[in-house]
């Protein structure tokens, strides 16, 4: 009897093991086409609030065009570093990823990305020429830009004088002591001080980092709190009055602000620019399908829906000139999201964050610890 039971259990375990291998191995070969997409959380129009469901529409489009039914696994990550560690562990394989610029530069250097076959991405012509030849991919071989953003200062007009709302000085203005929030992230916080002082944010000179450090220390007494996504609630409720964040996120706050709060936004100069771009990692199982997906993301309906959903600026000409999109966003939002930057590529290549060497990063983090302790 005992033997019979143990044999049954053994058989069950074997079946499970085989089934496990089966589902793990069906990524590439076979007839069953699967696309694995790895993107930031809340960074694509996903059908909520009656919006366009990008993944579903892509499946439908593929079915209509090629008559093949595909499975799309859409997973999310919370930071570039999370995505990087998951991919470099070799434990998972994804076909399309959308990291930020400095992470792309690092992944190209570490030979983790595949060169794209732009013949399979005819919609690449929709990308504005000022988003080509950016520093992380100077020859445009690995990437297709997805969204970009510029850091600006958000302020509550019910508390802050309009005359003071200029440049980075507002975040150091003693009149508003205890009403200012600063980034709780070493790179972004030092960035604000370095733009204010006119220092290159990618410098390797420790004396320059020390100068920025002194500036942040002098600000410490004025800072209400060091925050990341807590800034939404603090600004919306009026708990804090001044803070720097991305233009797209300002609109999210504007949507939810309390009756007693009147949020406004402006860009200091210089400021931070970033670009997130679609790439195909080396572990990709089906490059053609991945390129079809990237091409689809560049098509008018998907691109407009994603830009409306995320509130981030789109680098595609078929989005920011689209009359429906302009109407949906409103004139004011269009002015903020797409400011007159002159030559974007030139500004971007000068002021964007680049991957720092480990020595500089370590130095920066030690300085950052003492800013917060003070």
């Amino acid at each position, binding site marked *: *009897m005992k033997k019979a039971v143990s044999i049954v259990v053994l058989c069950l375990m074997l079946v499970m093991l085989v*089934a496990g291998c089966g589902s793990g191995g069906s990524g590439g070969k076979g007839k069953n086409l699967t696309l694995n997409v790895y993107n*930031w959380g809340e960074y694509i129009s996903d*059908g909520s609030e009656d919006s366009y469901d990008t993944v579903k529409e892509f499946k439908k489009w593929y079915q209509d065009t090629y008559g093949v039914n595909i499975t799309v696994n859409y997973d*999310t990550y919370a930071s570039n570093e999370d995505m990087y560690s998951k991919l470099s562990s070799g*434990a998972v394989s*994804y076909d399309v990823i959308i990291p930020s610029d400095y992470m792309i530069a690092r992944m190209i250097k570490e030979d983790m990305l595949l060169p794209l076959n732009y013949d399979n991405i005819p919609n690449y012509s929709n990308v504005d020429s000022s988003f080509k030849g950016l520093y992380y991919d100077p020859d445009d071989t690995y990437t297709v830009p997805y969204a970009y953003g510029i850091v600006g200062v958000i302020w509550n007009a019910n508390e802050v004088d309009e005359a003071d709302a200029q440049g980075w000085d507002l975040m150091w203005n003693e009149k508003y002591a205890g009403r200012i929030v600063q980034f709780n992230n070493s790179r972004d916080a030092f960035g604000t001080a370095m733009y204010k002082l006119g220092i290159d944010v990618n410098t390797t000179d420790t004396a320059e980092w020390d100068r920025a450090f002194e500036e942040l220390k002098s600000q410490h007494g004025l800072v209400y709190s060091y925050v990341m996504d807590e800034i939404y609630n603090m600004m919306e409720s009026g*708990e804090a009055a001044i803070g720097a964040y991305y233009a797209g996120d300002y609109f999210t706050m504007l949507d939810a602000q309390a009756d007693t709060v009147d949020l406004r936004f402006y860009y200091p100069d210089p400021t931070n620019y970033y670009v997130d771009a679609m790439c195909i990692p080396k*572990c990709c199982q089906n490059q053609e399908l991945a390129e079809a997906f990237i091409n689809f993301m560049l098509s008018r309906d998907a691109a407009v829906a994603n830009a409306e959903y995320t509130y981030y600026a789109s680098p595609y000409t078929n989005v920011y000139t689209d009359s429906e999109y302009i109407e949906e966003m409103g004139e004011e939002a269009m002015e903020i999201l797409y400011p007159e930057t002159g030559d974007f590529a030139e500004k971007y290549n000068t002021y964007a964050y680049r991957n720092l060497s480990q020595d500089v990063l370590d130095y920066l983090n030690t300085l950052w610890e003492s800013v917060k302790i003070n």
Partner: protein
Amino acid sequence: MKTASKIYTAIIFVFLFAPIAILLVFSFNDAKSLSVMSGVSLRWYRELFHDEATLQSVRNTLILAVSAMVISTVMGTAASVGMEKLRSRWLRSALNTATDIPMTNPDIITGISLMLMFVFVGRLFGLANSLSFWTMLIAHVTFCLPYVILQVQPRLRQMDPSLPEAAQDLGCTPLRAFFKVTIPEIMPGIITGAIMAFTMSLDDFVISYFTSGAGFQTLPIRIYNMTKKTVTPKMYALATIIFFVILALLLISNLTDQSDKKYRKK
């Protein structure tokens, strides 16, 4: 003294339940904010049931929790019975310590070591995706198992060992005696163990984070990944629903415990 102890109890309860109460209230908020209450509505509940990706992650979480619960309950009960039958005291306590390790080990170490093992085995077989639903299931069974054993073992020890023997004297086969006498006798322990395993699996983030593969993300991972932008109030609605489901489960487990005690008094 008495009022002091009452105030103390009240403070403890406020700290325990204030966060949940806030979440519950704001899940009915009309606006998209955690600080401004602009009106009462079911808007976020409606949105929640239209958000296919979130619902899929809830489904994934439930499939995983139920499978992990069933497997770890069966394995844990079998292990407890086997360990009770051991003659060597030394071996029994050694086994007890070994099965407790996944529970006392910090999650992050369990998670990383499991991931390394899965990647190693995956490389051995040349798989592109060494992490999948199955690796997550193995990981969840691993950390649920000690909770089941912890609940079942005391029941077995409390049970009068002459009961199954009497059943066998009266003509039952050992297997029949086990299912007819031992199992009903230790049932409350099995149920509590199963519920513990289910809730442990449901709210695990760290171990799931390291062992999740492409195409199978659970709810805690999805919520964590939302923090680049804000966590939407949909999640407050979902958390409220989950809170009440867990509350119901707890009440059921307590009630079975109570009826069991009454039965014992008789």
